[in-house]
């Protein structure tokens, strides 16, 4: 039973997310080519590679500092809509954890909730719009349920990652109502939302780093 997560975990998460995004770069862009402009994988790969490069130069001293570094770097390098969306997610998570050296389950779930709320506010999307929110919202719900049931941090992250993956798959039949995919209307159905897919990868990386 792991009671808390530390800075080492936050850095390992970001490094793991970088590797996952690099590994799935082509697949994410293929998803995006079907219903968007085909650059989601390249954009995220560029952004997370820059995050990993910054982490090698300057090791953050708290989980919050690591999240803030990721936020600022993603917003400066991703280029597309995923930049401000993931950037805001990490920025809000950084604010939620403050200067804490260790994140317990409550603080962890609070950070995930704040991240999701930031994405909602920035993107103005709702559940069912076929966006990142459709992975983040079930993930946050699962994390909060796990905390309520007395789970440890590892189990909270595992529940969040599994729910995000299920949520991403569940975007397949949806008709997009936000972002460029919404221009396609009904033709967007039958394709997975690339932002939901990358959100699931990133949350899985968080669980694997714990």
């Amino acid at each position, binding site marked *: 039973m792991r009671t808390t997560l530390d800075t080492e975990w936050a850095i390992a998460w970001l490094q793991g997310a970088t590797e996952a995004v690099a590994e799935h770069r082509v697949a994410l862009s293929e998803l995006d080519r079907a219903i968007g402009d085909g650059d989601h994988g390249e*954009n995220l790969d*560029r952004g997370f*590679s*820059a995050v990993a490069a910054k982490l090698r130069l300057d090791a953050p001293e708290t989980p919050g500092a690591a999240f803030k570094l990721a936020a*600022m770097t993603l*917003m*400066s*390098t*991703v*280029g*597309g*809509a995923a*930049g*401000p*969306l993931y*950037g*805001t997610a990490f*920025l809000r998570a950084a604010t939620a954890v403050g200067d804490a050296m260790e994140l317990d389950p409550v603080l962890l779930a609070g950070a995930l909730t704040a991240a999701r709320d930031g994405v909602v506010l*920035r*993107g103005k999307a709702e559940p069912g719009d076929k966006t990142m929110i459709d992975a983040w919202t079930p993930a946050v719900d699962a994390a909060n349920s796990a905390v309520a049931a007395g789970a440890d941090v590892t189990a909270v992250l595992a529940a969040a990652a599994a729910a995000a993956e299920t949520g991403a798959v569940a975007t397949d039949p949806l008709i997009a109502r936000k*972002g*460029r995919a919404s221009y396609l209307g009904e033709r967007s159905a039958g394709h997975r939302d690339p932002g939901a897919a990358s959100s699931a990868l990133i949350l899985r990386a968080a669980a694997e780093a714990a």
Partner: protein
Amino acid sequence: MSVGLVIVSHSEKLAAGVVELAAQMAPAVKIIAAGGTMDAAGETVLGTSLEKIMDALNAAESGEGVLVLTDLGSAVMIAESALEIIGSPATTLLADAPLVEGAVAAAVAAQSGKDLDTVRRAAEEAWQPSMSSGQDPEPEPDPDPEPDPTASAVSGLLPEKASPAETRGPDADAVTAELELINPMGLHARPAATLAGALGAMDVEIDINGVDGKSVMMLMTLGAGCGTTLCVSATGADAQQAVKLVRSEIENGFGEL
């Protein structure tokens, strides 16, 4: 000093072009481009960059505040993020405005010394010309059942929506003038900016062929060419001075003769 502007675009060239256009009308205003983002090799590619926006916000600030204008979707999101990161100060605002028209209108308002809220309003009101012209029927296909005799007297010279100043109401105190444009290009962008900028700095309500004389965008929508008569009507403390200025500019052909 004046309110500064930051132009956020996915394209470095588009941001630079908007700056070039707006700066022509507002030489004293700091207008800073934040276009494109850098790839790993340091090449500028299409996209938006927080870092560029933060640098531009600093460069545009001269103590009177900064207005941010954006192009498409994610540029709005990144600009909102930038404002959140700097603590959403009241001295930095985001305009919900068309990029080109909004930047020009904001630049002219800033040039005439307007405060930040007024500059933002000028940018956001730049939506209106294109909206109203889209809704206005052409006179021929949709004849007015009760034609306004005063309006028909200048038909062909004015857009359908414009009505001469005299018909605006029983305003006996208004200073009025009828002035004919004599410069070959008429009331194009630069003269419109000259008038709107100078009038904007005065204590006056001024109507030119049915539109607000302080609005560069509205003046441009008149499409008033050489030979067009402008009906000017002004009220307020600076009314005499304002009409005198308009007369002087028009009679001098806006310095283009």
